[in-house]
């Protein structure tokens, strides 16, 4: 894992509390009986009391599956920011003859939705002051959230580009210029609004890779293009027949936890 950011480990504070889930209205009489364990849950001595003697609790439809990202307009980015990020991710992971680039793989959409959610607001992270100067070994000590960092640096990047390239935003620049700017961000030679752009480069690169390789349910890795490119079968859960087949390419296409909805071909 790259060593750069408090935002690496964004937390989505999903509730694991089964009670948060709606109950089917008319459970059968036996299902009611079966849920005895849950109904014995009391509020007398804590958040949730599970009394022994009734077995492992369970209820129908329990679970906490991910919410699939829907296509559509930007949620977090302004249109200009979205265009810039699409241009950035398409240089970080450029398209080639066989595999789409970061833009068409949905990396910018992925980042947009992540920044609009728990990750963007650093929810779940320890954000109490004081924020002091840290050694590299102590990790990032930044009071700003990833959302704030992105907004700040995208504004700065836009200002830089327009000032340097005759009013053109980043997305309008030739690929060579884009790469020159990204290289400057990477090696620290490019200052944006007086600060090094390297932390932003690192978080952007990391998030772009997440979008490229994460399950398509989150909006990136469209059509599982990244998984197909490298030969990773995705959310498959059973390789018993393949563990001892040596030096042989696994033949089945990847699948997504989002199912066929996300375009996953099926294992015949």
């Amino acid at each position, binding site marked *: 894992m790259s060593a750069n950011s408090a935002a690496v480990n964004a937390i989505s504070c999903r509730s694991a509390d089964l009670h948060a889930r709606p109950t089917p*209205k008319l459970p*059968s*009489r036996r299902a009611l009986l079966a849920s005895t364990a849950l109904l014995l849950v009391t509020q007398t001595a804590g958040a949730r009391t599970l009394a022994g003697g009734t077995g492992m609790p369970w209820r*129908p*439809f329990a*679970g906490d599956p991910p919410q699939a990202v829907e296509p559509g307009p930007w949620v977090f980015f302004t249109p200009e920011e979205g265009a810039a990020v699409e241009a950035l991710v398409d240089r970080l992971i450029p398209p080639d003859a066989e595999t789409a680039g970061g833009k068409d793989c949905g990396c910018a959409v992925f980042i947009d939705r992540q920044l609009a959610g728990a990750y963007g607001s650093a929810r779940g992270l320890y954000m109490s002051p004081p924020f002091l100067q840290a050694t590299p070994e102590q990790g990032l000590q930044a009071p700003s959230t990833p959302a704030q960092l992105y907004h700040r640096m995208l504004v700065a990047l836009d200002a830089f580009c327009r000032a340097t390239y005759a009013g053109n935003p980043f997305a309008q620049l030739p690929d060579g210029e884009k790469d020159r700017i990204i290289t400057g961000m990477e090696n620290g030679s490019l200052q944006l609004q007086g600060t090094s752009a390297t932390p932003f480069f690192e978080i952007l690169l990391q998030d772009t890779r997440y979008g490229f390789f994460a399950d398509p349910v989150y909006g990136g890795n469209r059509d599982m293009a990244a998984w197909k490119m490298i030969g990773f079968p995705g959310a498959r859960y059973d390789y018993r027949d393949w563990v001892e087949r040596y030096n042989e390419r696994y033949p089945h296409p990847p699948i997504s936890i989002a*199912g066929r909805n996300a375009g996953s071909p099926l*294992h015949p």
Partner: protein
Amino acid sequence: MRCMLLGCALVLFASAAARGQYPDKQAFEVIEHGRYMATAADCTACHTAPGGKPFAGGGALETPFGTLLAPNITPDIGTGIGGWTDDQFVEAVRTGIGHGGIHLYPAMPYTYYTKLTREDVIAIRAYLDTVEPVGNLVQANQLPFPFNQREAMVGWNALYFTPGEFKPDPGKPAEWNRGAYLVEAAEHCGLCHTPKNAMGGDENSQAMQGSVLQNWYAPNLTGSRRLGIGDWTVDDIALYLKTGRNSYDTASGPMADAVMHSTSHLTDADLRAIAVYLKDLPPGGSGPAQPVSQQDPAMQQGQAIYNNRCAACHTVAGIGIVALFPRLSGTPLVQQSQATSLIRVVLEGSRAVATDAAPTGPAMPSFAWQLSDADVAAVVTYIRNAWGNAASAVSAGEVANMRQTLHRDAQAP
């Protein structure tokens, strides 16, 4: 140790009954026998509300005609059965005529309990007299008009109720007769496993051939090899009733409760007797089904979904893992005439029964969020027709209805 005590109690009680003595309701062996018979009759399934005190009533019974609440049968004088005479109790259990002459609904399985011996019913009463009296007034009748008219039960009884104690078949061994008594009287297996007519009466010509009840399919228990338990041995049946599973099947849904509350507590001898009796039921149910073609698009789609989503537990070959993941290949449960239970467990998941003998109680997750109605229909059709299985195809409409019935917004594609 408990089994030994119980065994003694049974012997003592049997000898008392044989001498024609009125049982002493305060005798240890009578109370103990009553507890055993109340377990065999699974009284608690309805009369103990979830999280409520034992036998204090209030458990809801969903019937096709509306909701009934099971009454309080603790010895509380005002709200329970503390004020009843033994005869009134026996009358209620065996004829459905409650205290004060009111007619009970046959959700109380008096059509089965009528076959219980008077001694056994008195013993149950003796046991109930020892439980904690609970003041809990239950308004049992929640039915809409016209079903809330209890007098209607007089006509219903005339049509569908044959009163009378169990009569052993002298041509059959004692073990068979003991099994018949437990199946036909106490365990009231037919309540779920025998198809019902429009008025809720048993279709006796199709006894034990399987039936839909409360959005579960209670499978065929006849000797049919394809649909029933024709291939099961006596030991397989007894193991299933004792532990909730065997190499063919795992109990879930209502049967999980029946195993948990009732059959897993029966003696090995009684379970064996039940098995002997059930094994003697002639094959019944529909004839051989034509399997859905493997070339059918739904089968192709179903196979893909199965291999991707189901095989990590049930295995590609459908053989499952003994005591953990149910076998699907060749098992009657997946080839019943209706796929109600299969559709249901794919949508909402399921918890297998846990017993002292097999405490794991594995659960299957809900796939409602992941699979569309067509996906569920395809994969259930595939399961019913793969590996040599044969059963009717399932339509997306059936799945949609079940989804709706289960009152759950479909988030699936």
